[in-house]
Structure formats: C-alpha cells, structure tokens
C-alpha cells in the first residue's frame, strides 16, 4: 500500500508531507518535539489535522481544508496499526486474547480468532506466553506480543513509534531482528532515534525538524550525503551549512570550509560541506603546511568513541586517539585548532 500524507496542524507547528512507497519502510528521524508522533497520530486517525490530505492507495483517509470539513475515516476503519514505545497490552486479557482482539473486532468467531492468534504468536516466537497475563511478561516479551497483535489485524500500513526505546539492551537486538523479518514487504513508518534502526530496518529516511521535513530520501543516500544537521549528527558526520563560493562553503558566522564539490555549484548557492570527524586534525597552535581549512574553537566536551576520543566544539567534532589526547592535554574550555584537508571534505548543494 502506498501512503501519501500531507498534514497541517498549526497549533502544534506541524506542516509536512510524507510518502511511503508500497512495501517500503520509511524511518522518521528528528529531535524531540519535531512532530514525529503528531504525524503518526494523524495518520492513525487519533488526531485530526486542521487541513491536509491522507490517502492509502486510492482510499482517502482524511481530506480537509480550513473552510470545509471534508472527509474523515475513523481510526478503526483505516487499516492502520500503531505500535508504541510501551507494548500497551490489555491488562485484563490473556496474551492470546490480546492478539485475537483485532481479528475478533473484525467479526471473526472466537475460536478462529484464537487459532490465528496462536499462529501469529508463533511468528514472533512467543507461543509459550499464550495463556499468561500481560503483567507476567518482561518488556521484550510484551513487545513481541504487541507486534503479533498489530500484525494479526493484517494492517495495510504499520506505524511504529520508537518500538525499541523502552527495551533494555539485552532484548532490543532480538526485537530488532524480529522487526527486520516481519517488516519486509510491508508498508511501514518507523519513528526512531537510533541510527541502527534506520540502517537495518528502513529503506527510506525522512528527517523532521520543527514540524517540517527537512530532508527525505533513500537511507543510504541520506546517511552518506546528509543535507540537514540532524541527519549529519546521527550519521556521525560534521556538516557545515552555508553558501557556495567556488569550492568554499561560507557560513553566516564567518566559518569557511574548502572542499571538493561533486558538481559545479553556482556562486551564492545554498550548499553544505560534509566531512568525517576522522578527517579532522586537532592542534593547540595552528600548524603551517598543507591542510587548507583551519577552524578555531573551544572544546565543549570529550567522549569515548570506539577506540578513539571524540572532541566536540560548538560546531564541529574530531576523532583522535587517546595517545594524541594525552599529548595535547586538552579539556573542556581549552582553545583548540581544527584542521581539515580539503580533499576530505565533500561539498554539495543543499
């Protein structure tokens, strides 16, 4: 099923357009309060946008503008299942009846609905919990059951709102594997904070900031060639946004980064310079020699990053070895000089 959703909720400062191609998974990324959950609730029918148009294939789920009321399909007739952070299993029903709830609501007799529920529990490796009460399950077990319950309704569109964020580190990988298996060929929107979820589960990525889509495209492209600060941050890249002058990107704050443009850029065109923290050298004094980009800054934070240490300044970050850090003897508040070889900087239009 192909989803098109154009939503406007001015009271929540949300105004965006999303599209999910049939059988693909779209990851929604963005900082807290960017409007991700609002978008999901609108598509599920739990929230009514002021205006917009939501269609699932040929079916219109919502249409309306400021003046007329338009069309509105209630949540129970949308064929859109929503899976939240917490499993939200009905506490008064057994695990089996939780999974059978959807088919029963669609009018299936109890016996057949339970049979179907058993099959779905088997799909998520949770058969042995069938007769338990939800209160007797761990977080990971409950989320498995919630996935089975959502899938048992045969939804045309599946909405996942940070399905792994409430789980402990031990159970998250197994659920991620399970989702990878069941999301194949299903139209899905996945809200996540985790780069790993985007890479492993999503075909496409849309980045939301302040209620708007700032970037959208195939996952691999967005993560290797981000044009938004948020996408660059979760991809672990430095991104400097500004205007292009020749091979240089200049920011309004006066930062100038020279790089290798992938295609010819017009003078004054909006562009970004993107480079890995690995490509950044860190010094206390500006060195003389070949690297052409020199950026001064104040260290704001140091954090371990794999076998290296990531040095943050207000705009950029750099990865250096612990030995190099010891030699530099820098800490938060110290002035440093970052150098970046122009050949390591990708410059493209944004």
């Amino acid at each position, binding site marked *: 099923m192909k989803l098109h959703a154009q939503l406007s909720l001015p009271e929540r400062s949300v105004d965006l357009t999303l599209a999910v191609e049939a059988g693909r998974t779209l990851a929604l990324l963005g900082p807290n309060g960017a409007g991700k959950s609002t978008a999901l609730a609108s598509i*599920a*029918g*739990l929230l009514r946008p002021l205006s917009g148009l939501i269609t699932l294939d040929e079916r219109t789920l919502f249409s309306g503008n400021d003046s007329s009321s338009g069309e509105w399909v*209630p*949540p*129970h*007739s*949308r*064929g*859109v*299942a*929503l899976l*939240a952070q917490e499993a*939200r299993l*009905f*506490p*008064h029903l057994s695990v089996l009846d939780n999974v059978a*709830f*959807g088919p029963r*609501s*669609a009018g299936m007799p109890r016996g057949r609905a339970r049979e179907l529920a058993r099959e779905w529990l088997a799909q998520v490796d949770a058969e042995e919990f069938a007769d338990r009460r939800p209160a007797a399950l761990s977080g990971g077990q409950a989320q498995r059951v919630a996935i089975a*319950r*959502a899938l048992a*309704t045969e939804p045309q569109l599946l909405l996942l709102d940070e399905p792994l964020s409430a789980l402990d580190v031990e159970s998250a990988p197994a659920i991620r594997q399970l989702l990878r298996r069941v999301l194949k060929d299903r139209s899905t929107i996945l809200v996540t904070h985790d780069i790993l979820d985007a890479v492993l589960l999503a075909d496409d990525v849309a980045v939301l900031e302040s209620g708007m889509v700032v970037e959208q495209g195939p996952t691999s492209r967005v993560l290797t060639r981000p044009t938004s600060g948020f996408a660059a941050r979760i991809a672990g890249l430095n991104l400097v946004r500004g205007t292009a002058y020749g091979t240089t990107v200049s920011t309004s704050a006066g930062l100038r980064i020279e790089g290798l443009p992938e295609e010819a850029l017009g003078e004054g065109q909006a562009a970004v310079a993107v480079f890995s923290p690995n490509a950044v050298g860190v010094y206390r004094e500006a060195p003389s020699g070949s690297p052409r980009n020199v950026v001064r800054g104040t260290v704001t934070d140091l954090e371990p990053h794999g076998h290296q240490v990531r040095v943050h300044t207000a705009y950029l970050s750099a990865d250096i070895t612990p030995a190099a850090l010891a030699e530099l003897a820098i800490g938060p508040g110290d002035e440093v000089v970052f150098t970046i070889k122009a050949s390591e900087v990708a410059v493209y239009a944004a």
Partner: protein
Amino acid sequence: MFVPAAVGALFVVLPLVAMLTRIEWASFGTLITSDSSRAALALSLRTSVASTVLCIVFGVPMALVLARTEFRGQSIARSLVLLPLVLPPVVGGIALLYTFGRRGLLGHTIEVLGLQIAFSTTAVVMAQTFVALPFLVVSLEGALRTGGQRFEEVAATLGARPTTVFLRVTLPLVLPGLASGAVLAFARALGEFGATITFAGSLQGVTRTLPLEIYLQRETDPQAAVALSLVLVVVATVVIALTRRSRTAL
C-alpha cells in the same frame, strides 16, 4: 502524626461503641423484627438497590462524557453535577418537590400522564438517586481519567468500533472504579434522610425508610431506635466488606 491520626480514628469509632453499650440485647430481637421495623428495612433495601441501578444507568454515561469529551462549559457542567454533594439534603428535597410535586415545574405534565410522584415510593428512589448520583460520577470519572485513553486508542487502531472499545476495553478496566462508585452510591442512598422526608414524606411501608423510622422511634422508643441503628451499621459494614472481597478477586 500518629497522635492526631489516633484521635481521628477514636472520634469515628467511639460513638459506635457508645451506641453498642446502650443496646438492650434481651429485647433486641423483638425490637428489630416489629412490623414497622421490618417494613422500613425492606423498603430501604429495595429503594437503595433501585436508586443504585438508576445511578449506574445515568452516571456511567455522565462520567464518560465528563472524562472523555471536551465541550464548552464542561467545568460548569461538572460543578452542577456535583452540587448535590455539597447541598443540604433538605434543600435537595425542596428542589425536587418544586420540580416533580403536584404544583411543581413538571407537576402538571406528570398529573396529565396520570402519575403522582411526590409522597410515593418513586419519590424515595428519586430523592436517593439525586443525592447518590454524584458519588458514582466522581469515582468513575476518576477511574476513567487515571486509566487514560492509551488502551482505547490501541483498541481503535486494531479495528475495534467505539462500542466494542467500550465493552471490551473501557468497561473492564474501570470495573473496580465502577464497583466502588456503586457501593458509595448505595451507602449514600441507604442513609438518605433529609431529601426523602421533604420530598417523599413518611408513610409506613411506602416512604418510611430505615433512617426515617429510626428518627421517629427515637422520640417514642429510644431502645428501638438504637437497635435499628445497629442494623443499619451492620448492613453498611457487610456492603463494604463484600465489595472489598470482590475487588481483591478482580
């Protein structure tokens, strides 16, 4: 902290104990099985059950509207619904009389229909419902609000229609709240005095409930009044005990 708590508890318990000491156990049996006592007890139980049922029938939709919808003037509506909680029952009785009494607002309409409500058993039930309804609405609305809409939203996205959501999700989840609300309403109806005597009067077997009987007996036969009071205490205790059992079983 413990001292004021103990004083408070003593304040509640001591009068009950004092009452127990005044009971003449020898004549207890005959006192509470007299015709008038038995009639009053039976009437009290019958009317209290009826008004509890009415409270559920009207109170559940009222609590749902207050907890699950938003409309203009909702807080005013809530205050009005809760008014009988703070209103002196006598005032409630007078208000009912001027609404449903023979010369009341709706009195003429009712008379045309061939009914007369004031000073009948129906009036007793209405007076009890009037004072007991807020108890059910308050506790059920509280249960609905603390339960939240999380489960109802999930149920809707799983394809359940609003009626299915209500019957299979909302209602089972607030059942404890509904039960305790119903018990409170029943207890309030059982003890109702002021509105009843104003609106329904005191006719033996028709409108003279147990509290009215106790009040009347106190003037002529204090021993009987004390004995009947104990009966009321026992009934109330049994009701509370039963609901606590059923709540822990849930």
